[in-house]
């Protein structure tokens, strides 16, 4: 395709598109073909971009997401019109909720048929409008290079987010007659806050003065801006303890003595107790979401609230901060360090260390094999060095609690959206992006069955992804709620009839392992972790009726945390989910 003779031939829109993607350093495209996208797939023949053919478009979107979170580079998805496009909606929403850079290219029916209910026509531009950072419906072939350039700029600057580009088939088929593949962008309304206002940062610094019980709360923004080193310096200078959100895992090492681990609904007891008694809380790249605050009017009462975020719309959305700075978390923290003085926190740290000993995360072998134990063993066997992706539910919370994360980009989970079926394809994407790292997907039996068709994708590419299925034969988190708040009236949670996951893996040519007893866990996990000939599935059959604790019922503040299994009936939660 790249011989001189052919490159002298005029390009069509699709060829110009692929050339632009190559120029942006795109390594992979995850996609599934279809009529309206054929010109684009055709242009990929001979390109240095590797096309990864998936089995369902949702899988493609989560793979691009996992790749983006593992590498910091935007993931690219290519699908056809109609159902091909709508199958990516869950993946786009997931990326939008968690601020992940992603570019979704959708084929579209020819321009003259738009709005006429053509075969496989869907208004994907309209459908996805509320869940994208920005989107385009390209009308002119010559606009393609500008649109691609803008999309790459928008998706991964400021607060990242997905960009969708809808490409009618006639637009990609027509001859490109533009003069350049690197045109000027036309984005007069888009500005990216960077280092933050100096006065705002000085105000933040002033707030720290005299604080006796400071608490740093770090979120996904800290991970995205690679603020880890700066946060470490700030925490050690202030001698302030740190708690992280689910998506903030890794921005500050959870094994560090100043770390209290995750806070919130299923966070550690000591992190939540710190939230109750702190006199200052400074959020770095978190959005005080409802998993964290429970009830904004009872959150950190009496404490000064400081907020650092790149998105000005986060200021005052949930909580009114006492001081705030808008900009890149790393740059703001680096400046903030210069203006703060060490605090006297000895008493505070002593109190928290006591709480850590008093209320550790725990589990027992009393009833048999638990998910917590399997995850804890995985942490030990992998020495905490694996990139972990998860699905959504009980296993996700246990993974967050027991698989401590020490580095940015080593924890990939669907936080805001809570998308089941995310973990496995995200692990595939992460493995493509980080071929030298060990990638483990910790998934539930429910979520895994939503996207397991991608076993083919993993097998074909011999990716050494490890899938640990925590199988309790229930949609466990909902079962937990029904047990605790709905008189154990189980409804729509029983996954009776789960397949034999080892045999299922083998049917795809994937290695299968099984853990059924406590004594087996260590040996099987060790073997699986060292199996690198291709993907493997580790089927862990755990006790069916176990609950995640601590737990703060939805809509309640940390004051209402349940640490031990309750013996009395609980009120129905007032929060949404």
């Amino acid at each position, binding site marked *: 395709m790249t011989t001189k003779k052919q490159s002298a031939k005029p390009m069509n829109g699709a060829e110009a598109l692929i050339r632009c993607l190559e120029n942006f350093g795109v390594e992979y495209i995850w996609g599934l073909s279809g009529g309206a996208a054929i010109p684009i797939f055709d242009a990929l023949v001979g390109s240095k971009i590797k096309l990864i053919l998936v089995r369902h478009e949702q899988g493609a979107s989560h793979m691009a997401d996992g790749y983006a979170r593992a590498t910091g580079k935007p993931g690219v998805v290519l699908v056809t019109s109609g159902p091909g496009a709508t199958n990516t909606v869950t993946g786009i929403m997931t990326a939008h909720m968690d601020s992940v850079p992603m570019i979704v290219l959708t084929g579209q029916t020819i321009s003259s048929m738009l709005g006429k209910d053509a075969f496989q026509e869907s208004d994907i531009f309209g459908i996805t409008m509320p869940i994208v950072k920005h989107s385009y419906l390209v009308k002119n072939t010559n606009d393609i290079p500008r649109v691609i350039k803008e999309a790459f700029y928008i998706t991964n600057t400021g607060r990242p987010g997905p960009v969708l580009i809808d490409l009618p088939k006639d637009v990609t088929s027509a001859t490109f007659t533009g003069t350049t593949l690197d045109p000027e962008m036309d984005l007069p309304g888009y500005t990216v806050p960077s280092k933050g206002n100096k006065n705002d940062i000085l105000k933040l610094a002033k707030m720290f003065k005299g604080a006796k019980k400071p608490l740093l709360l770090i979120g996904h923004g800290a991970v995205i801006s690679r603020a880890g080193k700066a946060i470490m310096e700030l925490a050690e200078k202030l001698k302030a303890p740190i708690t992280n959100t689910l998506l903030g895992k890794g921005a500050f090492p959870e094994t560090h003595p100043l770390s209290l681990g995750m806070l919130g609904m299923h966070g550690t007891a000591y992190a939540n107790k710190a939230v109750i008694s702190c006199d200052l809380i400074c959020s770095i790249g978190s959005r005080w979401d409802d998993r964290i605050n429970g009830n904004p009017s009872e959150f950190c009462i009496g404490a000064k609230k400081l907020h650092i975020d790149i998105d000005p*719309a986060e200021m005052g959305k949930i909580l009114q901060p006492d001081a705030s700075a808008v900009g890149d978390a790393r740059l703001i923290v680096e400046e903030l360090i210069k203006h703060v003085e060490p605090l006297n926190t000895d008493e505070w740290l002593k109190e928290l260390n006591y709480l850590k000993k008093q209320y550790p995360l725990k589990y027992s072998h009393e009833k048999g094999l638990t998910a917590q134990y399997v995850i804890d063993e995985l942490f030990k066997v992998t020495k905490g060095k694996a990139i972990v992706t998860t699905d959504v539910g009980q296993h996700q919370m246990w993974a967050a609690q027991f698989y401590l994360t020490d580095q940015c980009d080593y924890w990939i989970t669907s936080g805001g959206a809570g998308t089941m079926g995310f973990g496995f394809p995200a692990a595939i994407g992460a493995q493509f992006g980080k071929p030298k790292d060990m990638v483990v997907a910790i998934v539930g039996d429910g979520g895994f069955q939503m996207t397991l068709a991608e076993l083919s994708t993993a097998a074909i590419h011999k990716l050494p992804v490890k899938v640990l299925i925590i199988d309790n034969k229930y949609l466990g988190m909902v079962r937990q709620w029904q047990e605790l708040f709905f008189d154990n009236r189980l409804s729509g949670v029983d996954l009776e009839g789960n397949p034999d996951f080892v045999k299922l893996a083998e049917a795809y040519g994937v290695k299968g392992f099984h853990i059924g007893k406590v004594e087996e866990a260590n040996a099987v996990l060790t073997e699986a972790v060292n199996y690198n000939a291709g993907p493997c599935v580790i089927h862990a059959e755990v006790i069916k009726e176990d609950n995640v604790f601590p737990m703060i019922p939805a809509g309640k503040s940390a004051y209402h945390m349940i640490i031990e299994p309750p013996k009395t009936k609980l009120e129905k939660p007032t929060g949404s989910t």
Partner: protein
Amino acid sequence: MAKLSENATKRNIHTVSLVVANKPGVLVRIAQVFARRGFNIDSLVVSPTVDPKFSSMTITSRGDAATLDQIIKQSAKLIDVIHVSEHKPEEAMEVELALYKVKGKSVTKVSISKSIKSYQAQIIDIAQDSIIIQQIGSTEELDTLEAILKKYGLVEMVRTGKVVMARGKEST
């Protein structure tokens, strides 16, 4: 004017003006920001600006101030939105235009034409048994005339919604 402002605050009415890039979908994106947060748009005016690359929008909407603050911030975040601001009546000129169709005999027409004079209104069409009146003024002035015309047999009414321009050095 101060009195009007107080009135507007009481009813939680807000006037928001936006400058947007002339790109497809921008109106829908903005409408979604309002709708998602439970704000009904009472009136919406889109018009060209001096620079043909941009359009101006004036939106009148009802709701609490905290939610409006979010709406403004979320609208400002949209890639195609250049500028958003809320306008207090004392800081901006706010004007609306209305057309009224009133049915009635010639006697009525004469008395209408007398009574509308003090409302910056004029008759712009006279048919056999109806007239069309045009009025330009503040929302409150339009409300007042509307109430008066109802007594004479108002059968149809259409209002443009507010257009707003910041006073003096400020740009809208």
